[in-house]
């Protein structure tokens, strides 16, 4: 019944993460936080990071947004945990290439793991900001800048 292109965007994994987001809480041990805001749609997200020795020991998020932005934040939280700051930054570059259709899928999609389910976003330029809000906010938190990240 659902259009295949739409199904590609709203895969089961995304709907699942939307319904039951992982690491959706305030992190008491957080030593870096940032708030992200998409002024176009009012999506808001708070990212909490526990970073020690340049490694993301723990991560959580809170906020409200569409299924794409919520699932993206949830997936990001599961994949970033345990990664070094440098790895996290590189992963975002790859992820951004994926959702903007710049990634050569044959070469590097494996490295993105579960994040690959968001590849459908590339067909929806209006939704790229939804998928990237959590990542922008996470990077702001990593820099420990106590300002609001936006997708603009």
């Amino acid at each position, binding site marked *: *019944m659902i*259009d295949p292109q*739409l199904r590609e*965007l709203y895969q089961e994994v995304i709907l699942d993460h939307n319904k039951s987001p992982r690491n959706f809480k305030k992190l008491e041990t957080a030593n870096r936080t940032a708030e992200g805001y998409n002024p176009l749609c*009012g999506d808001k997200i708070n990212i909490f990071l526990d970073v020690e020795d340049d490694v993301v020991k723990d991560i959580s998020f809170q906020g*409200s947004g*569409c299924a794409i932005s919520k699932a993206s934040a949830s997936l990001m939280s599961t994949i970033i945990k345990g990664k070094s700051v440098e790895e996290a930054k590189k992963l975002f570059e790859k992820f951004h290439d994926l959702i903007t259709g710049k990634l050569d899928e044959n070469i590097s999609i494996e490295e993105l793991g579960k994040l690959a389910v968001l590849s459908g976003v590339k067909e*929806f330029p209006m939704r790229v900001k939804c998928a990237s809000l959590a990542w922008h906010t996470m990077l702001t938190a990593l820099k420990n800048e106590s300002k609001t990240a936006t997708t603009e």
Partner: protein
Amino acid sequence: MIVKPEPAVQETNNIYDVYRIREDFPILKTKVRNKPLVYFDNAATTQKPQQVIDTLSKYYNSMNANIHRGVHYLSNIATDAYEDARIKVKNFINAASEKEIIFTKGTTESINLVANSFGKSNLKEGDEIIISNMEHHSNIVPWQLICNEKKAKLKIIPIDDNGEIIFDEFVKLISDKTKLISIVYISNSLGTINPVKDIIEIAHKYDIPVLLDAAQTVNHKTVDVQKLDCDFLAFSGHKLYGPTGIGVLYGKEKFLEAMPPFMGGGDMIAKVTFEETTYNELPYKFEAGTSNIADAIGLGSAIDYITSIGMEKIFVHEASLLEYATQKLEEVPGLKIIGTAKQKSAVISFVFDNIHPHDVGTFLDFEGVAVRTGHHCTQPVMQRYNIPATSRASFGLYNTTEEIDTLADSLKRIVEVF
């Protein structure tokens, strides 16, 4: 010379033939992914009938020239057509004189004009402007700017859970410091039709002028500025089935006469020397620079179109669409309508607990249904209801109950997916 569009509807009887009317709007034949377009984003902008499109084309094909002071043929017919459009606007809202009709680029500019001209010359420290909780940003920010400059205060009329202003609270806000009340006639995000006549009556007891933001009103119901006795009224052409980039500020002559110009430039002057400039008479004092001639004439054509159908008939048709859609949408599991005022225009904002408006918007787009999702430039309304955004279906004179069925059926399928 007067640009006369073809009559929109050959009325042979009293029936509102929506299918016949749809034929006037070429864009309604658009297919979205092989599905017929269902255009429910009329509160953002309305589509244009062929009559308006033809008028624009005719203007550029055979009439284009700069207006006023021209001695040549084209300048004269362009001037006549432009001034004729002003008379059409005057008649449309029943203003006392065409001097009271100022062409702007839209509602936003109209409100900014009053804020800057009236505000600058009448506000002093400690004075107050009253607006409501359901204003569009264009009726908030201009007042904030001028209030900041003048150290004046903005007072906000609260709204209740249904999206109606709390009238007693409004009355309490009035004081001897109140210099102007600027309020939306029909809310773009809630659909509420405000009791503007009562508001104006009370305001005038205290000699306070009232500005009405009628952007969402002139396309839905008859507006008679003399009956309402409003002091200013602002609206846009593009929400009235006319072109973008053209709007109107109506102002009572006594206020406009007393107000200083908003912008300086050509056409708004009587005599210029380096020592002193005297201003042109109304309405030209407020129309600096070359006006948007073509689109003003296009707006005149849109008014002809609407008038030929009949505003009362449009109102009845849209009221039936609202009633039908409200009932249909209430049948969708989990859907909650935001804005349930007793007096409502054909706008329905809605939310789901577990489905974000953006996801709703994307799914509907795949069904060919165009709705708007977001805060609708009314963030204080979203804050009032503690929601980030809504989906909004807004209806126009060409919408049908079948299209509403498509919306309701699509929404039911979306609920199943999430």
